[in-house]
């Protein structure tokens, strides 16, 4: 109970926390669905990434900034952001090597139509964009809502300062 009491001071009440535990999983699942089925149904990498970021935002509102730092610290988010952007650029540039000299050549086999595993590199591009958008929006969220960011983490990564 003591742990709950300290958590309560940082975030919102126990009721909100319990509901968030349930809802957050579904929000994340919906974000993954929107991103993964981007080549079949409305949506895509950008919308899916924003929904995933909304899940992290809900977590931050319900449990406080400390919990957000535990599940996705800002240092890790910036690494994911760079990784997503690099992955997307590599997918685009792979067409130069594998697809005959132009960016965005769909060099993978298209597969069976209207299946999840189809459309060549398009699902991979969606995944890269979703990762990138999610990480960058979590970064913006963390930087704007916790304006106190100090160099206190390991290996020079910056962590949010909980004191306000």
């Amino acid at each position, binding site marked *: 109970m003591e742990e709950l009491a300290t958590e309560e001071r940082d975030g919102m009440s126990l009721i909100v926390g319990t509901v968030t535990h349930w809802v957050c999983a579904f929000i994340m699942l919906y974000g993954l669905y929107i991103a993964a089925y981007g080549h079949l149904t*409305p949506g895509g990498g950008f919308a899916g990434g*924003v929904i995933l970021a909304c899940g992290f935002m809900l977590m931050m509102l319900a449990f406080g900034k400390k919990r957000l730092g535990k599940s996705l610290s800002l240092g890790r988010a910036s690494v994911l952001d760079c990784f997503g952007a690099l992955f*997307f650029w590599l997918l685009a540039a792979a067409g130069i090597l594998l697809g005959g000299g132009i960016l965005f050549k*769909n060099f993978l086999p298209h597969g069976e139509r209207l299946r999840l595993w189809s459309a060549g590199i*398009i699902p991979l591009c969606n995944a890269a964009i979703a990762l990138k958008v999610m990480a960058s929006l979590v*970064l913006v969220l963390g930087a*704007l809502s916790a304006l*106190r960011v100090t160099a206190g983490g390991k290996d020079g990564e*910056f962590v949010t300062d909980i004191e306000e």
Partner: protein
Amino acid sequence: MLMNLIVVLLMFVTVGAVIAIWTRDLLSAVIAMGVVGFTRTVVFVLLRAPDVAITQVVVEVLLLVILIRSAVRREVHTVEGGRSVPGAALAVAFVAVMLVLGVIAIRELDPFGWPLEKRAPDAPAITYVERGLEDTGSGNIVTAVLLDYRGYDTLGEATVLFTAIVGAVALLRRECRRTPHGRVGD
């Protein structure tokens, strides 16, 4: 019928935007912004653009919460200071000129819901719609255009977003305010 509904919704959007500018209470301004965004989502759904509608609604939710959390501080509730009359007059004149130009431009356009293909039979859009699934293997024609036919645009957009986030994080973190002689902020 549909067009009348859309016109009513767009008038709602306009009223929301005017209130967002006019009100002095920051929370009311953010809520009016939300009215603008969510009404536009409904308009996109009515116009059968689900991709845009999904993106609009999720960005709107995230933006509203960020604005409420970061812009509306506990100490500052209202905007202080008087309004500048020449500035307001200039803004009204600018909006009026743009409105007149917009009405002129819309009169020159094809009627609403009239596809471009009927006037230009060799437009690229026809190729995209006809050969999209075959060329790219993507059942969603919007994704086929975004990530295959017009992939360069998406790449540029992702790079712009990446650069913007790098700049924002570099500016907002604490370390940037530290000089060799101590912190600037303190």
